[in-house]
Every structure is written in structure tokens, then in C-alpha cells.
């Protein structure tokens, strides 16, 4: 039974989506119950998977029992299991929040949400590049509709640039995969890694395929020239949807980390693929995001810029071969994901209490919600990187891990400056939200306290504190995950397993 | 691949390039319906090419979906956009460029 744990995070939401579609006629309560039970089971499955993966071996699940590279395998190392758990927790928070009424503003919210989880989990767990493409597509198609959910035609138009850009990205991904199969004759990541290492002669086409693939992942991760879709699309989406979307940029970042560590870095043909340009672009992204945060006029815009900022900070990491850098990046990823998602939910909760002023940074009616202010303070302090919260620890680890690198001065300068700008932005704008009041502004009737919303916000805000309190075990896990990621030979031999023997006898 | 096959492939490729240029409205009379038909033609020629390259499965898919269904989907969408434009802005549906 243990071996099937690997596919459960994909299978549970898939089954839930089918069940929800079949039970369309039974009202919203049934849809919610199925959805919430599914994310609960999904989270439990992810915890189980994490425990299994932490035993040290890469878990390989061969779909239909066909060995790699002939069939598709799911390959779950500590990194994949960790990402699956983050996705499951984020989904739980977002769905809980959406269940308080947001889901009724359009059709088919629940099955689409579950299918989005299928796409995300599949993208993290799979060990096959074409399968990654397929799960990307599932994720993106679900996201197109979720983005428009509850906003009618206006929100549909807001998402148009996002849809067009991602369609182009998908086409590029497909071309890259075609070239990769044409040159290397395989699509399994471990096998691609092996073949890249033994590639001789003219490898220009294979190299181009690898570059194209990085470009596609960079589009998902919103690296600078390809990042302008993000703030608009995320700010346009409904709060719970935006909260779930935070993990989508991380799919791109983890994909870059993984292909670089396992396939590109060990091979002579592609070892220098990320050198030089990635760090520069990542720093530019972080800088741009900080400026955007400073100029944002609404809290949800600010949160969207923070997503971009964390993507920029994280994308510094893949270019460095040291496991300590990767480990620090993973810890930072963990906290920045939850912080940004929490900010989206908080923006919605704040907007609800300020009437016409919504979540714009203008003076509005006084809010009588001390717990909301506390939650905002906690999240903002963590997102800004103030001690003693998780954001501070993450940035500290990342900066100290990068201390000895060649570009250390530039990285330190840009990241610290960007951090300062973000602190300024959050302090100034948070003050405007909570302290500046207009006396005659009419406060809307206090919304009914909904336990689902409060619980969802608590779930996503608490990591700012918990990740700081339990920094040691979490950072240790991140270090183990990073160390495992940087041992590509172990990954390759486990995934390809016994087929290696077949290969030796090849005529 | 025999000489005849090579010649056929070359003719097909040239025809596809011309059709593609019509489809992105560089050549021809630059009307949208013609562009859609040209895009369908590219798919149709591609499916013949796949057949020459001995992959009947892909050829069938390309012919049925690429040149058949998606061409008609484009026409449905075009008709819808035009009627929407007429209704919304009293737009003259004949001038579409």
C-alpha cells in the first residue's frame, strides 16, 4: 500500500472533481463538503508522503507498472514531497475561505479548484518532462477559468493577456520537448540527465531545447522580461483564487531548480546554461517588484508585487551549485508563499470592512477588527523580513549562504535594498489602512464573522510565526531536501533502476 | 526516401509556407475568413506530409482536428464576434481589418 501513497495527492482531488461534477444537482453544500474532505485527505496524504520521502530514498511510482524511461514515473524526493505538502495546505486555506460565499459567484468553482490542485500536484511529483507539460496544461486551463470566477466579462478580459502569454509558453514547451526527444530520444528527466552527460558531437539542438525549457519555466516563474502578466492577473483574481495562484510561480521555480540540479549542471553540454544572466535578471525582477510594491494603490496589488519579489529573490538560487543556497531558498520559498497568500485573503477581509474605500490605500472608515490588524501586522512583518519572523530568517539564510559567491556584493546590495523598499511600502500602506480615518466615512455593516474565513486566515497567517518557532526542524528538512537534489546520480540510478542493465546489453 | 517522395515533400513544404503567409495575412486579400481557410490548409498539407513520413496516426489527428474541427471552430467564433460587434457598436461587419 505504501507504494500507492505517491499517486494519492493527484488521485484524491481528481476523484473529488469527478464526484462534484456528478453531484452537480445536489446544491452547494454537497460540493463544499466533498471539496473540504478532499483537501483534508489530500493534506493527510501529503504528510504521509513527506514521511516516506524523508526516509531518504527517492520514491518511484511507475504508472501502469512500466519501468522508466518507457513508461511514465512519478519520482518523489524530499523537495517534491515538501512542495506537495505546501500545495495541500495552501489549497486547504484557500478552499476554506472560498466556501464562505465566494464559490457561489460563478459556476463550477469546486471541480475547477480540485482540477487545479491535480495539475499543481502532478507538476511537482512527476519525473517525466512530457508529463510535466500535461500537468502544466491541466493547471493552466483550470486557472484560466478560476481567474475569471466571480467577475464575469470584466475579469475575463483582465485574464486575456495571461491566457495568451501562457498559450505561447505552452507552444514553446511543446517545441522544446519535440527537439529534446529528437536529439536525446527520451523524455524521462533522469534519462535526459544521463543522455546529456554522454552527449558528444553536435549538441546545439539539445542545448537549444534546454534553453527553451528554461524560458518556459521562467515565464511560469515570472522572471523579468516575462513577468509583466503577473501583477495584473493576480490582482484581478478573486482573493482565494489569488491565494492558490501564489504556488503557481513556485512551480516554475522548482522546475528550474530541478532540471538544473539533476540534468543540466552535471552535463558538460549544459553546465554553463544559467551562468551570468539568471542572477542578473532575478535581481532585476526583485528590484522591479519592490518599486511596484512601493507604487501599489491597493493591498491586493501590493500582494501581487510581493509574489513577484519573492520569485525574483528565489530565482537567484538555481544558478548556484551549493546545497546551502538551495536549502535557504527552499525555506524562503515556504514562508514567502504563505505570507503572500495570507495577504491576498487579508486584503479581501479588509476591503469588506471599509466600504467604498475597499483595500485602496486611502483613508476610510475605522475598522473594528483588532484581530485583523494583528494578522496583518504579523504577515507584513514576516513578508518585509523583520526579525524575529520567518521572512527575516529566510532572507538571512539566503544572504549568508551566498556570502562567498562571486556576485555576492551585487546580490546583497539589491536584495537588501529591495527588502528596505518593501518594509517602507508595507509600513506606510499598512498605516494608511489601519490608522488614517475619515470621520464622516460610513462604515459598512459589520460582516457576519464567518468561522471558515477566520480559520482560513489563521491557517495561512500562522506559518509566519510557526516557521520561526520551528525554524530548526524546517530548515533541517530543507537542508536534507537540497542535499538530495544535488545528488543527481542517486536520483538517476533509483529512477532508471534495473533498466540500466538492459541498456548495457544494447547492441 | 525515393526521389519522387522528396520532390513531393518539397512541393508540400513550399505550399505550406505560402498558405502560412496567407494565414498570418501577409499575402492574399487579408480577409479573416481567407486567413482561417489558409490556416486549415496548412494543417491539411501537414497531414499529407505526416502520411508521407509514415505516421498515419498523427496524420489522421491533424486532418480531423487541425484542418477540420478547428477551422470550423474559428468560423463559429468569427461569426459570433461579428454579431457581437454589430449588436454592441453598430459596427459594419464587412470591414473587419
Amino acid at each position, binding site marked *: 500500500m505504501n507504494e500507492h501513497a505517491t499517486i494519492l495527492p493527484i488521485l484524491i482531488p481528481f476523484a473529488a472533481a469527478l464526484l462534484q461534477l456528478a453531484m452537480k444537482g445536489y446544491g452547494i453544500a454537497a460540493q463544499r463538503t466533498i471539496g473540504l474532505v478532499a483537501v483534508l485527505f489530500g493534506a493527510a496524504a501529503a504528510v504521509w508522503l513527506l514521511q516516506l520521502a524523508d526516509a531518504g530514498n527517492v520514491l518511484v511510482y511507475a504508472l*501502469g507498472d512500466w519501468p522508466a524511461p518507457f*513508461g511514465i514515473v512519478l519520482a518523489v524526493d524530499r523537495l517534491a514531497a515538501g512542495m506537495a505538502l505546501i500545495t495541500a495546505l495552501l489549497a486547504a486555506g484557500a478552499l476554506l475561505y472560498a466556501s464562505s460565499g465566494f464559490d457561489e459567484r460563478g459556476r463550477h468553482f469546486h471541480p475547477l479548484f480540485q482540477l487545479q490542485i491535480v495539475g499543481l500536484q502532478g507538476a511537482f511529483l512527476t519525473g517525466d518532462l512530457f508529463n510535466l507539460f500535461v500537468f502544466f496544461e*491541466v493547471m493552466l486551463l483550470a486557472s484560466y477559468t478560476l481567474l475569471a470566477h466571480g467577475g464575469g466579462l470584466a475579469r475575463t478580459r483582465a485574464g486575456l493577456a495571461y491566457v495568451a502569454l501562457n498559450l505561447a509558453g505552452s507552444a514553446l514547451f511543446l517545441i522544446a520537448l519535440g527537439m529534446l526527444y529528437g*536529439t536525446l530520444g527520451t523524455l524521462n528527466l533522469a534519462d535526459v540527465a544521463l543522455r546529456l552527460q554522454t552527449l558528444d558531437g553536435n549538441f546545439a539542438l539539445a542545448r537549444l531545447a534546454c534553453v527553451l525549457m528554461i524560458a518556459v519555466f521562467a515565464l511560469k516563474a515570472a522572471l523579468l522580461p516575462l513577468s509583466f502578466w503577473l501583477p495584473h492577473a493576480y490582482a484581478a483574481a478573486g482573493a482565494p483564487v489569488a491565494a492558490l495562484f501564489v504556488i503557481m510561480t513556485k512551480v516554475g521555480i522548482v522546475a528550474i531548480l530541478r532540471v538544473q540540479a539533476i540534468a543540466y549542471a552535471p552535463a558538460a553540454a549544459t553546465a554553463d546554461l544559467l551562468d551570468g544572466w539568471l542572477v542578473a535578471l532575478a535581481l532585476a525582477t526583485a528590484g522591479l517588484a519592490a518599486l511596484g510594491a512601493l507604487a501599489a494603490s491597493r493591498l491586493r496589488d501590493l500582494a501581487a508585487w510581493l509574489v513577484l519579489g519573492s520569485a525574483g529573490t528565489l530565482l537567484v538560487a538555481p544558478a548556484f551549485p551549493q546545497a546551502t543556497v538551495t536549502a535557504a531558498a527552499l525555506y524562503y520559498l515556504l514562508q514567502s508563499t504563505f505570507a503572500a497568500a495570507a495577504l491576498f485573503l487579508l486584503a479581501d477581509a479588509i476591503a469588506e470592512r471599509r466600504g467604498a474605500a475597499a483595500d485602496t490605500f486611502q483613508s476610510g472608515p475605522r475598522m473594528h477588527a483588532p484581530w485583523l490588524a494583528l494578522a496583518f501586522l504579523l504577515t507584513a512583518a514576516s513578508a518585509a523580513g523583520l526579525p524575529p519572523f520567518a521572512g527575516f530568517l529566510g532572507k538571512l539564510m539566503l544572504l549568508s549562504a551566498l556570502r562567498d559567491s562571486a556576485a555576492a556584493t551585487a546580490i546583497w546590495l539589491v536584495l537588501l535594498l529591495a527588502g528596505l523598499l518593501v518594509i517602507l511600502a508595507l509600513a506606510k500602506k499598512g498605516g494608511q489602512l489601519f490608522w488614517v480615518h475619515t470621520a464622516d466615512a460610513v462604515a459598512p455593516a459589520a460582516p457576519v464573522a464567518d468561522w471558515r474565513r477566520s480559520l482560513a486566515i489563521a491557517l495561512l497567517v500562522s506559518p509566519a510565526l510557526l516557521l520561526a518557532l520551528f525554524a530548526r526542524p524546517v530548515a533541517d528538512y530543507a537542508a536534507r531536501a537540497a542535499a538530495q537534489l544535488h545528488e543527481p546520480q542517486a536520483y538517476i540510478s533509483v529512477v532508471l533502476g534495473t533498466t540500466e542493465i538492459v541498456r548495457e546489453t544494447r547492441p | 526516401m525515393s526521389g519522387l517522395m522528396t520532390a513531393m515533400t518539397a512541393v508540400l513544404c513550399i505550399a505550406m509556407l505560402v498558405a502560412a503567409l496567407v494565414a498570418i495575412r501577409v499575402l492574399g486579400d487579408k480577409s479573416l475568413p481567407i486567413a482561417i481557410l489558409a490556416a486549415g490548409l496548412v494543417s491539411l498539407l501537414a497531414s499529407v506530409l505526416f502520411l508521407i513520413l509514415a*505516421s498515419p*496516426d498523427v*496524420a489522421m489527428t491533424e486532418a480531423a482536428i487541425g484542418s477540420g474541427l478547428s477551422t470550423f471552430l474559428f468560423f463559429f467564433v468569427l*461569426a459570433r464576434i461579428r454579431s457581437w460587434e454589430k449588436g454592441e457598436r453598430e459596427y459594419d461587419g464587412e470591414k473587419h481589418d
Partner: protein
Amino acid sequence: MTGKNMIKRLLALLLLASIGAMFASLLLAYVPDTDLNFTARYYAEHTAADIGAANIVTAIIVTYRGLDTLGEVTVLFLASGIVGLVLSFGRKQNTTLRNLVPVGELLTTASQYLAPIIMLLGVYVFVNGHLTPGGGFQGGAIIASGMLLLLLSDPLKRFSHTLIATVESFSGVGYIALGLVGLVLAGGFLDSRILPNGVLGELISAGAIPLIYSLIGLKVGAEFSSMLTSLSETEDL
């Protein structure tokens, strides 16, 4: 056309040409393999023994890479759902008032006789997917093109949405159920070896492939049909 538009188009053309030149130079340098590569050789040598399917492409799509196919079917399902969802924003029920170009006698009569034959061909293609070229995706598309012919000959024709939706969910659930049976009876999720391989080349052979591909064919046909009908029925606004 204004000058600005012209420059825009020229720039786009230049960009396309340079990308084309780049790919062309790479492709000219590409030396195709003279024999099958490692994975392709495995498929060619082992398919008949492993799976019992005469069509190797089908074997790869349904069994070796079954998860991809499940994903693609999901993608298609999502796409048709999105079309329906987007079009539902401005739907108007009043469809009697439009000026239709009269449809010729030839088209009406021909489509009445042709459509069933086309659909039968579609069914043939997906039922024989493991023996002859084609399969669920192609057969489904052929079925949908039969529907398209009917729609063209009579644009006011209405198909039963319940029927399409029922076929869609029945085939989707059936596919997943077959995958889950593999979890219990065979090597894992989506293992098609839950039925005996049979004799190579016979209609009832190749394990569960004919079953799975028939379900996929129905599913694909239903998705495309629902896309077409929702587009055609909301044409008026």
C-alpha cells in the same frame, strides 16, 4: 493601413524570419538517427509481447504513457467547459429571429445520409484503435465532425445536452474506474493488463485497450460536440 501599422507588421515579420532562420540553421545541422533510438526500439520490440496491440502508437498512448492521455482528456474536458462558461455570459434564448441563408436541398439530404455513416466510421476508428491507425482522439473528432455536418445543414437544430453530458460523464468516470481497477487487479493505477492480451491482431485483444480507447473516443466526441453546440446555439446576441 497607417504607417504605424505597417512598421508593426514589418517588425513582426522580421522577428518571424529571424526565428525561422535560426531554426532552419539548427535543423540543417541535425542528423537524423539511422536506426531507432533506445526508447523507440523498446516500444517496437516489446509492444506485441507486452501488450498484444498491433498498433504501437496506440500501445504507447494508452498504456506506456497512460497518465499523459488521462491528462490530455482532462485538458479537453476543461477546454470545452471553458467555452461553455465564457459563452454563457451573454447568452440569449431568442434564436428564431435570425435571417438564415437558406440551406440547399443537396446539403440537407446528403447530410442526413452521410452523418450516420461518418459517425459509424468514427466508432470503427476508435474500436479498432489497437489494430489500425487512429484511435479514441481521431474517432472522437470524426464523430464530432458528423455532428458538425448536421449543424451546418440545419443551424437551428438542437441536440440533447443531457445526452451529451451523460456520455461525457459516463466515459470519464469509466476511464478512471478502469484505471482504479488496475490498482487492485494489476500493477497499479492505469495498468491496462487487467484483461488477457489475447491473440495479436484480433478485435478482442490487447487487454483493456479497446475498452479504454472506446471510452476516450466517446469522451472526445462528446467534448467536441458540446463545444460546437454551445458555440452554435449562442451565435445570436
